[in-house]
């Protein structure tokens, strides 16, 4: 009985560890043709929440979002903005219904986000880090 409980505990712990590791799997990327190398998570968040339309160097920033069915999406917003899916939705409701802004263009998944960002030096996206290849550059913290 005790043994089984212990096993369950370990299994639960292992699951929570892999979840925690999973939460760090989403990275912000730009095209490898983009001059941008560093952007902290607040700056990434500001671009995806429509608070700014430009990179720190003044060039236009075009965020590419993933649709609501993508598992990357919730992880990205939790990690970079600290907001739950409902909070992100509420945030955009405020901007949309005063004509102040429209949410970023959405693509179906990480592979499409990578394809879109690779083609456009102004684009910024988030993808699972296992998808990273030479067509994109992972933005470092600072």
């Amino acid at each position, binding site marked *: 009985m005790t043994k089984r409980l212990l096993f369950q505990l370990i299994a639960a712990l292992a699951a929570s560890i892999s979840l925690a590791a999973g939460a760090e799997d989403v990275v912000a990327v730009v095209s490898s043709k983009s001059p941008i190398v560093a952007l902290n998570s*607040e700056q990434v968040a500001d671009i995806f929440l429509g608070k700014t*339309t430009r990179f720190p160097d003044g060039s236009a920033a075009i965020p590419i979002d993933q649709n*609501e069915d993508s598992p990357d999406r919730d992880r990205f917003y939790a990690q970079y903005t600290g907001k*739950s899916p*409902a909070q992100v*939705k509420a945030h955009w*409701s405020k901007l949309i*219904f*005063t*004509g102040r802004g429209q949410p970023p263009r959405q693509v179906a998944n990480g592979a499409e986000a990578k394809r879109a960002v690779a083609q456009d030096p102004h684009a910024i996206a988030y993808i699972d880090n296992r998808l990273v290849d030479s067509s994109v550059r992972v933005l470092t913290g600072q």
Partner: protein
Amino acid sequence: MHRKTIVAAALLAACGAAHADDEGPKIKLSGYGTIGEAHSDNRDADYLVDSFKPNGPGFTRAWNADTDSRLGLQASAELSPRLSAVLQVISQQRYDGSYRPAIEWANVKYSPIPDLSLRAGRIVLPVFMVTDSRRVGYANPWVRPPVELYSMVPVTSSDGVDASYRMTLSPTTSDTLEVTGGRSDAHFPPSQGLGTGTAEVRNIFAVANTLESGFATARLNYGQARLTIPEYRVFEDAFRQFGPAGAAIAERYGVDNKLVKFVGAGVSYDPGPWFAMAEWAQFDTHSIIGKKSAWYVSAGHRWNKFTPYATYAKLNGLSNTTDPGIPLAGLPPPIAAAAGQLNAVLNSQLSVLPSQSTVSVGVRWDLLRSAALKLQYDRVALGSGSHGVFGNIQPGFQPGSTVHLISATFDFVF
């Protein structure tokens, strides 16, 4: 006429966008709505969430679905990277009790440079922190924005122009300055005891400054306008018949091209797992409508899909609630009687200056991705001798009493 021209121009621009549609998907349709039900335990008066509501929970019906229910539809068009247009139509209970749709916003926006935007048409009147989204229940944590503060200025839109400029002060700090000029006509129902009328708001000038840094937001507001309520002229003219003393009263309390002033300040902090916000404002009409101030503090904690919150809000009437009126001494008896009646009318109007406080507790449940269910309890304590924000007052109503409200809303966006 001028107003209609602006609205028509915005509509035309939106139609132009429909044509431009062949070149790409540039038109977006979206909407929001609330299905609500509110209950009051006081059957001798209606709880009025703003002065444009003809009724509310209480006297008219103990349960009232008209208080919070509404539907908004919006078309946004991107005509070019610098030019866009928005049209929003809202259906909610109006002053006449109907749900006839009204144009809430209809404007074109032009951004000559990235951080500057200019709008013309029917635009939001920037008054409070959540003015922009006060109708969008889904965007707010509460069943409705705190009534003490938000009922002070029920006008939500202005026909005219605004300019908004955003300055980036540091990578995480920005400041947005918004200047608005315009005019507005608002019909109010007889629920306030003043009869039906129109508030003609002219020469609106409003400035709002919003500083955002990380999770913190601070906002300062100033606004002024010229207010005329033609229905009051009958009182003003009546007083003017009584010589200089009457004329002075007509001048002091009349609502004829009166300068009204508004100042407000608010702060909010929202790191994600919880939020806290506070707001204060003062509104002076230099007329019989009086001078008021209000404030609230509100905080909530997000536990997964549930966000319990609590709010304390207070509304203070700052101007006099009585006036000696026309001196009756020395007047011939028939004239003194007429003057006495006028004085009584004046004092009954002054006495409705609201003062009240409310403790609210509630919970928001994000049960679907685009919909939330909210349940809220309000304990409204009326100031001594005051009707608070209540209207349709019946003889059995006790000024200064305590009223309990329960509200439930289902808010959605699409």
